């Protein structure tokens, strides 16, 4: 059986005296495509940032590839695509140079990117189908194209684990569909374990192997088609939800808060 890429035990994270995550126990096995869903403010991004070592937990244990998140041996093994708001999209940088940034930690200070680094960046641009736009400034690309470039950058460090935070927000439905197909292909090609954060409970279960529902606590974690029922979602979202079931998976959720 495959080994655990991420192991989290009794994790508790707070910020400004406010508890954000509590009692989190999670194991992500190699080769899994995990969808992490839950309401906004439920702690999804915080959980990703904890796995990355950007947030220090109050208590509990977290192991990534068997090491603490910040361990030097994990450098380059995790690819990260944060929410779109972080990057400065008016920055005067070409798509190719953005992807090359994914190599910087590996290259180290003082040194310039080698021919091999450039070849690798080019290869990753090709993998996401963006070679023809390599010289375009990042701000001149569409939202979907930018997202592909950022995926290529995440892949440029040759990661085994890919963490994606709301990658489809601001991307139209057609582009979303092909984006998920791309992820599936990249997962096979680069033998990736993927964690995808989204609040889009209608779409995520279709495209992932497993789904975990996070709202302060981790409510459910299981195979995608089995997870979602009205009771679970009610618990996670704290409101009454009605599911219109289409096949095995609900394709729409209508809910009304009564709190």
């Amino acid at each position: 059986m495959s080994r655990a890429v991420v192991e989290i035990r009794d994790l508790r994270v707070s910020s400004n005296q406010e508890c954000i995550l509590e009692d989190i126990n999670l194991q992500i096995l190699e080769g899994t495509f995990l969808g992490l869903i839950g309401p906004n403010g439920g702690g999804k991004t915080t959980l990703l940032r904890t796995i990355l070592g950007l947030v220090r937990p109050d208590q509990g244990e977290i192991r990534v590839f068997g090491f603490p998140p910040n361990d030097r041996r994990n450098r380059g093994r995790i690819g990260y695509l944060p929410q779109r708001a972080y990057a400065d999209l008016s920055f005067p940088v070409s798509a190719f140079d953005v992807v090359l940034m994914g190599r910087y930690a590996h290259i180290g200070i003082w040194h310039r990117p080698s021919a091999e680094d450039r070849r690798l960046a080019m290869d990753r641009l090709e993998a996401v189908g963006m070679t023809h736009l390599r010289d375009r400034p990042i701000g001149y690309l569409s939202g979907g194209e930018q997202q592909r470039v950022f995926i290529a950058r995440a892949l440029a460090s040759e990661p085994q684990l890919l963490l994606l935070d709301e990658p489809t927000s601001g991307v139209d439905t057609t582009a979303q569909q092909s984006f998920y197909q791309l992820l599936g292909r990249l997962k096979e090609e680069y033998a990736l374990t993927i964690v995808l954060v989204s609040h889009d409970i209608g779409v995520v279960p279709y495209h992932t192997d497993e789904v975990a529902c996070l709202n302060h606590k981790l409510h459910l974690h299981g195979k995608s088609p089995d997870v979602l029922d009205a009771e679970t979602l009610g618990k996670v979202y704290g409101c009454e939800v009605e599911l219109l079931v289409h096949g095995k998976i609900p394709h729409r959720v209508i809910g009304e808060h009564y709190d």
Partner: protein
Amino acid sequence: MIDVFRLGFMQRALAAGLLIAVLCALFSVFVVLRRFSFIGVGISHSAFGGVALGYLLGLDPSLMAVLFAAVVALLIGLVKRRGRLHEDTAIGIFFSLTMALGILFIGLSGHYNVDLFGYLFGNILAVTRADLITMAVVAPVIFILILSVFKELMFLSFDEEVAQASGVAVGPVYYLFLLAMAVTIVIAIKLIGIILVSAMMVLPAATARQMVDRYRQLVWWSVALAVAATVAGLMLSYYLDLASGATIVLVAGVFFFATFIYRSLRAGTTAEA
């Protein structure tokens, strides 16, 4: 026209000006890209407290200025990275406090020193041979330091979150940048003055940004513009008997508006076509 640079003090001013122009231009690139134009204001004004304390205690004003500027630069960085305050709030607090200290120190020293005005407004006559030697030693060190973390600085300016997550030593690189900036500002104060030095850490790249869409070109253009503004500004200040710092900054300002207007006109014609 070149005769003016036969004069000893003008040669020193020119040499110092070129060193400063290249360094300031390099910093201006990151200042403009990271959008923290006021960091230069904060650091340079905090140097005033150091200069004043130097006069009060009879210590080297420049050395004290470096000390004050460096401490404030690091505090601004610390507040930004650790605290809940914004960078600009930290800048506003620290630079006004060090200015207040400076004014206090001057009052205590009991006399208004003429040299002090040199520090505030810049003076081409103020660049001594010893200053120039110091600059010639320090400037290359700073230049090499910044170049050694150039790509990391670009990465963290563009996307700090991913830079840190990917294993780039964001904290050390950022503090190194701030320290190097503090030292550069104090060096530049001799020529341009405390009040105006921050302008040279914004204008070159702000001007270049109007013309180019790649950060490497941005660096080259910023350096070229800063050098041109410094040479032209020094000559004008000599012939017209104007303050050197103000003249250099105003020439750089003219460059900015020229490119701004050119770009606006070009954008207009492109839209019509």
